[in-house]
C-alpha cells in the first residue's frame, strides 16, 4: 500500500529536555496504526510535529504523499488531509451538530449559508454512516456522540489521516465497538487512522501496526497481531509486571463491612455482600451498572431506600459523608481532578484538610507542628515525590496526585477504603505504585473496595470480584477460579 506519511530522523528538544530523538514513523494510506507510550514518552510532541504545531529539529524529514514538506504549518497540515482529534474533542457545545461539523464554512467574513452547512454536515455523516440530528446542540449529546461529531468534522475537512488522542478513555465497551466499526469504515475509504493511547486492549483488535515510544525514543514498530498486552507494557515501561492472582486466605479475618439487601430506586437493587479486614474486594461492571451509586451510598452521600449497612457489626444509618468518615469509611472518587483535590492549594493542605479537627489544640486552633507531622508522615508512607509540600497539587504528575488523594483519606484513619476507578488516566508505571500501596494497606488490615472498569485491574489486584449489572450483583468470582475472558463476558452479558 502507498505510504501516506513518512517521517524520518525526527528530533525535538524543549528547553534542554529531549522530547524526541531520531524517531521514524510511516503510515500507509488506509492503515489503522497505534501510537503507544506512557505520558512523557513523546507521543504528544510527535503529534504536534505531524500537525504542524511544532517544527522538528533540522535533519528531520516529513514526506506526505511522497512529497517532502518543509516548514509544515497547522493550516498546511490540515490542507494535506491531516486531522487531529484531541482528547477534549475541541467541539463547540453551544453550536449545532451541523455547525460543528461544517465549522470550516464559518471562516472569513460573509453571510452564513445555513443550507450549505446542513448539506456539508449531512454528507459527512452519511459517508461514515452516522446519524445524529444536525440541528441538536452538541451540549445535549453524550460523550460518544460528541466523538462521532468530531470524526465527522475531520471527514468534512477531507481527512486522509485522522489522529485520535486517547479516544476510548471515556467510552463504554459498547461505544468503543461503535467507534471501532467507524474506524473500519474510514479505513475502507482509504483514510488512515492513528490511535494514540496508553490503554490499548480494544484498539489492538483492529490495528495493523503498533509503534511504541519510550522516553522520546522509538522502541520499534510491530505487527499488531503479534503483540500482547504484556509485551506492550514491557516495551512502554521498560519493566515487566508479573502480577500474581490473589489466593489470600481470609476465612479467619473479621468482617468490616456487611451490606444486606441494600436497594435504592433507579440505582441499585437488593445488594448483599461483605468485606473482611485485609481484603481487597473488586467491583466491576459497565458505566451505569450502579457501582458508583452503591459506593456513594456506602459513603453516606445518597441514602439507600432499604437494607442495612453494618460496620464492624454495628448498624449504620449514614445521612452524610461526614458521618461516614467518622465511622471509618473513606472514599476516593473516580474523578480525582474535579472532586478529589483542590488543585491550586498546597499539597500539605490537601492532605491535612479532612483531619483538621484532629489537629486542633488549645483554643481550637490548628497546631502547626501536628499539621506538619501528619503531612510528612503520609508523604513518606505513600512515597509521594514532592519537592516542597507547599507547592500546589496541580504541579504533581497524575500518579502522585492520586497518592495525595489516598494520603488525604488515609489520614482519617479509616477501616474501610473505597477506591473508585483508582488508576484512570494514570501511567502503567504509576499504576503499579498504586497497586503496591493498596496491597500494603490491605496487608496492614484495612478493608478495601476497589471499583474499576478495567477487568485485569480487579482480576490481578483483588481478592474477590463482584460483577454488577443493571443495579444488581450478577456474579461473584475468586481470581484463581476465573479467566479474564470469562469475566469480560460476564460484564458484557
Amino acid at each position: 500500500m502507498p505510504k501516506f506519511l513518512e517521517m524520518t530522523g525526527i528530533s525535538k528538544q524543549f528547553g534542554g529536555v529531549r522530547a524526541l530523538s531520531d524517531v521514524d514513523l510511516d503510515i500507509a494510506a488506509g492503515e489503522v496504526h497505534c501510537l503507544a507510550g506512557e505520558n512523557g514518552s513523546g507521543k504528544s510532541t510527535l503529534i504536534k510535529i505531524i500537525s504542524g504545531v511544532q517544527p522538528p529539529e533540522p535533519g528531520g524529514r516529513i514526506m506526505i504523499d511522497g512529497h517532502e514538506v518543509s516548514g509544515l504549518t497547522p493550516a498546511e497540515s490540515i490542507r494535506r488531509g491531516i486531522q487531529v482529534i484531541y482528547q477534549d474533542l475541541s467541539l463547540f457545545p453551544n453550536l449545532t451538530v451541523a455547525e460543528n461539523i461544517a465549522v470550516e464554512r464559518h471562516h472569513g467574513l460573509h453571510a452564513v449559508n445555513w443550507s450549505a452547512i446542513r448539506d456539508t454536515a449531512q454528507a459527512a455523516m452519511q459517508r461514515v454512516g452516522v446519524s445524529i440530528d444536525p440541528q441538536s446542540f452538541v451540549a445535549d449529546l453524550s460523550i460518544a456522540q460528541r466523538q462521532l461529531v468530531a470524526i465527522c468534522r475531520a471527514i468534512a475537512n477531507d481527512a486522509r489521516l485522522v489522529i485520535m488522542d486517547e479516544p476510548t478513555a471515556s467510552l463504554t465497551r459498547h461505544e468503543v465497538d461503535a467507534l471501532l466499526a467507524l474506524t473500519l469504515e474510514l479505513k475502507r475509504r482509504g483514510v488512515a487512522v492513528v490511535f494514540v493511547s496508553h490503554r490499548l486492549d480494544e484498539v489492538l483488535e483492529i490495528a495493523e501496526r503498533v509503534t511504541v515510544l519510550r522516553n522520546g525514543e522509538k522502541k520499534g514498530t510491530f505487527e499488531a497481531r503479534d503483540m500482547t498486552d504484556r509485551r506492550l507494557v514491557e516495551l512502554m515501561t521498560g519493566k515487566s509486571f508479573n502480577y500474581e492472582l490473589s489466593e489470600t486466605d481470609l476465612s479467619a479475618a473479621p468482617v468490616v463491612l456487611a451490606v444486606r439487601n441494600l436497594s435504592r430506586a433507579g440505582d441499585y437493587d437488593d445488594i448483599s455482600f461483605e468485606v473482611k479486614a485485609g481484603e481487597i474486594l473488586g467491583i466491576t461492571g459497565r458505566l451505569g451498572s450502579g457501582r458508583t451509586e452503591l459506593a456513594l451510598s456506602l459513603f453516606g452521600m445518597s441514602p439507600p431506600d432499604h437494607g442495612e449497612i453494618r460496620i464492624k457489626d454495628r448498624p449504620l444509618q449514614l445521612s452524610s459523608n461526614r458521618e461516614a468518615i467518622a465511622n471509618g469509611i473513606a472514599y476516593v472518587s473516580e474523578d480525582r481532578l474535579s472532586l478529589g483535590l483542590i488543585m491550586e492549594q498546597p499539597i500539605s493542605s490537601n492532605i491535612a484538610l479532612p483531619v483538621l479537627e484532629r489537629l486542633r489544640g488549645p483554643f481550637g486552633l490548628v497546631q502547626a507542628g501536628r499539621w506538619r507531622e501528619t503531612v510528612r508522615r503520609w508523604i513518606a508512607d505513600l512515597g509521594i515525590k514532592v519537592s516542597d509540600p507547599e507547592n500546589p497539587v496541580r504541579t504533581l504528575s497524575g500518579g502522585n496526585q492520586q497518592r495525595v488523594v489516598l494520603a488525604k483519606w488515609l489520614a482519617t484513619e479509616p477501616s474501610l477504603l473505597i477506591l473508585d476507578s483508582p488508576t484512570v488516566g494514570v501511567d502503567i508505571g504509576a499504576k503499579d505504585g498504586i497497586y503496591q500501596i493498596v496491597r500494603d494497606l490491605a496487608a496492614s488490615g484495612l478493608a478495601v473496595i476497589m471499583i474499576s472498569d478495567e477487568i485485569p485491574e480487579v482480576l490481578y489486584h483483588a481478592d474477590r470480584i463482584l460483577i454488577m449489572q443493571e443495579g444488581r450483583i450478577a456474579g461473584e468470582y475468586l481470581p484463581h477460579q476465573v479467566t479474564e475472558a470469562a469475566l469480560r463476558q460476564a460484564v458484557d452479558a
Partner: protein
Amino acid sequence: MRNALRRFGRTHEARLLLVTVALMIFLSFATKNFFTIQNALDLLTSYAFPGMMAAGLVVVLVAGGLDISFTAVASIAQYLAVLAANHYGIGWLGLFGIALAVGTALGLLNALLVTGLRIASIIVTIAMLNVYYGLLMFVTGGDTINSLPDWFANGLSWVVAFDSHQNPYILNMQMIGLVLAFIMTWLLLNRTSVGRQLRALGGNPEAAKRVGFNVLRLNMVAYGYMGFMAGLASLVQAQVAQTVMPNALVGRELDVLAAVVLGGASLFGGVGTVLGTILGLALLAILQNGLILLGVASFWTECFTGIVFLVAVSTIAWERRRQRLAIRRVIGTAA
C-alpha cells in the same frame, strides 16, 4: 414547524415570554394607564438607551467576554459629538459620525487590552470605566452642556396618529434606534460568519483557536460593536435628556447587564439571544413601570426588581443544572 415550536417551548425565552405576558395582563387590569399605546410609546422612548446598550452587550457576552465600561464610553461619545455640533455646523451625519467613531474606537481599545493583557475582561473593563470616566470628568471639569443645537434638541419624530383626546402618537428616533439596534445584533449573531465565530469563541475558546479563528479580531468585533452601540445610544439618550451631563450615564451599566443576564445570556460565554435580551429588558421595564403605576414607593421598586432578577437567574442556573444531570443520566442508561 411543530417541532420548532416544541423546541422553543423548552427554552428560557419561552418562560420569560410567559412571565412577561402574565405581568402585562395583570397590570392591564390592576392599573388604569398601563394598557395604553401612549404608555407603551413612553416605555419604548425611555428604555431605548438601556435597550441599545443591551443589544451591544449581549454580543460581548456571547463571545465570552464582559464589558462594564460602556456607560463611560457613551458619555465620552455624546460629549464630544455634541460639543462639536455646538461649534461647527456638522449636522446629523457629522454628529452621529463622531459619536459612532469615538464609541467604536474606545471599544476597540478595550478589545486590544482584554486580548493583549490576558486578564479577565470584567477586570479590564472596570478599570477602563474608571479611566474613561476620570478622563472625561477631568477634561470637562464636570460641566454640563445645556444648550444643544436646535435641530438636535427638536430631534426626529413623526406624528403617526391621534388618540381619542387628540393627543398625538409619536414615532421618534429613540424607537427607530432601538429597533435598528436589535435587528443589527440579530443579523450579526445569526446571519454572519463572524457572528457564529463569536458564538464559537464564547462556547470553547481553546477549540476556536485550534480551528484557526482569530481571537483578537473577534474580540475587536465584539467590543467594537459594543462601543458602536454605546455611541449610537448616547445620542438617543442626549436627545431625550435635552442636555449632556458627563456623569449622567455612569452607574447604569449594571442595570443593562441585569437585563441581558435576565434574558438568558451566560456570564460564562457562548449563550445569549436577541429575543431573550428583548424580553429581559421588557420584563424589567414593565416591572418598574408597573410598580410606579401601582403607586409603589420607588425604593420598593428597586428592591423588588432585585428580587425578580435573583429569582430569574436562579431558575436559569437550576434549569441548566437539571439539564446536565438529565444528560448524565441518559449517558448512564445508554451504556
